[in-house]
């Protein structure tokens, strides 16, 4: 085959992107576990490990730049590189939200939680599912799945709405709960943003397959 090394580099770039995706997914799961179990050590770990995610993203970006500069990628190869560049940024940002949730855990310290966490873990499960599926759609070049992920964002938005209203009620009835309620609102907001970024990845899959730049998202937020 012609240009076998270049095609090998492109494949390994995709593998590296998936490795980054898996690191980010773990960071999100850990940040939620730390929050639920009031596990400070785990929260600190998420904060620390975000540096590794950042480095991985830069290394992906450097690989893309080198391939663009030296290999004149065209057609689907060019779209793949542009997609990897965008998706790696989305993933890195998701990692930052996980770090943000971990930082909230640390800020909350030993304070008892305001209420049992039910809807927030549910939101997190939905958004991690969206993240996993968006990367599967990338691997399989599956636009139908990509559009489905964009639709599924409504569910996360609805849950966020619900959490928001509920926390608002807590704050109105007991002003001393405002601080703790705000922490949880931030967490919910971070999760909602993660889901939005999963839809961004899905939109990139549509670009990868069709070359069309679309904004399918009709997020409420």
């Amino acid at each position, binding site marked *: *085959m*012609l*240009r*076998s*090394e*270049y095609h090998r580099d492109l494949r390994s770039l995709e593998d590296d992107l998936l490795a980054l995706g898996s690191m980010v997914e773990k960071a999100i799961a850990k940040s939620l576990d730390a929050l639920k179990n009031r596990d400070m050590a785990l929260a600190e770990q998420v904060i620390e490990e975000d540096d590794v995610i950042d480095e991985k993203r830069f290394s992906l970006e450097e690989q893309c*730049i*080198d391939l663009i*500069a*030296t*290999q*004149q990628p065209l057609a689907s190869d060019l779209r793949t590189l542009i997609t990897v560049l965008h998706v790696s940024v989305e993933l890195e940002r998701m990692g930052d939200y996980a770090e943000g949730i971990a930082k909230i855990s640390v800020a909350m310290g030993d304070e008892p939680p305001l209420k049992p966490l039910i809807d927030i873990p549910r939101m997190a499960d939905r958004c991690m599912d969206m993240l996993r599926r968006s990367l599967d759609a990338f691997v399989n070049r599956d636009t139908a799945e990509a559009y489905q992920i964009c639709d599924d964002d409504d569910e996360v938005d609805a849950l966020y709405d619900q959490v928001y209203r509920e926390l608002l009620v807590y704050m109105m009835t007991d002003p001393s709960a405002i601080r703790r309620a705000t922490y949880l609102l931030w967490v919910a907001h971070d999760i909602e943003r993660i889901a939005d970024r999963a839809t961004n990845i899905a939109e990139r899959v549509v670009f990868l397959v069709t070359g069309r730049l679309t904004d399918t998202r009709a997020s409420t937020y």
Partner: protein
Amino acid sequence: MNDDAPIFEVSSLSLYYDDFRALKDIDMEIRRYAITALIGPSGCGKSTLLRCFNRMNDLIPTARIEGRILFEGSDLYHPDVDATEIRSRIGMVFQRPNPFPKSIYDNVAFGLKINGYRGDIDEAIERSLRQAALWDEVKDRLKDSALELSGGQQQRLCIARALAVEPEVILMDEPASALDPIATLAIEELVRELSESYTIVIVTHNMQQAARVSHETAFLMAGEDRSGYLVEHGATSQIFTTPKSERTEAYITGRFS
């Protein structure tokens, strides 16, 4: 031999044709088992520099050099050095495929015979043709004339001919410029494979080819006095993403007159 030691060390190299100084004060090292591309505008001296590496310029009566090239740590231009022997250790492939008007077999056997090769010639020919990624296409027609091959096949035959005498270095002077795009990519793929066992220095007019194929890139320019000099030499990815010299930047981005 230490693989990290450069295979060539060029210091203060100038080359003159009579009074005209074609190369001026070149200092550079060539990395072993790597592909080094020499790029630059026409008349910058890149082919002249390439020909210094196996003393091809000796064949031009008016040419003389100043400075020094060490090959494997020894002075390449020392009076005791046999230039013909050097050319069997440092092979060359030219711009236009130049097979002899003989059979495919005889083309590859030629270098072996003049070098008094004592091994199994058939075996050496098969090895060279395989290394040049040509064996499968010609194994049933080794006695056919080399001139019946396509341009790309002829160039791979010339590479096989250079490989037959088991050189350490292969110099390539625009080896794909006379070929169509697909044959060009086949040569590039071959060059990448060969760099695992050989040191390759390649001159190319095609900047994209230098970017695709090489590990290191050296950029040369001609000064006001028309002497070629080395502007910048570094890892290919660095030269094509963040060149240090503004002149390199101007050349590779096409902002160059």
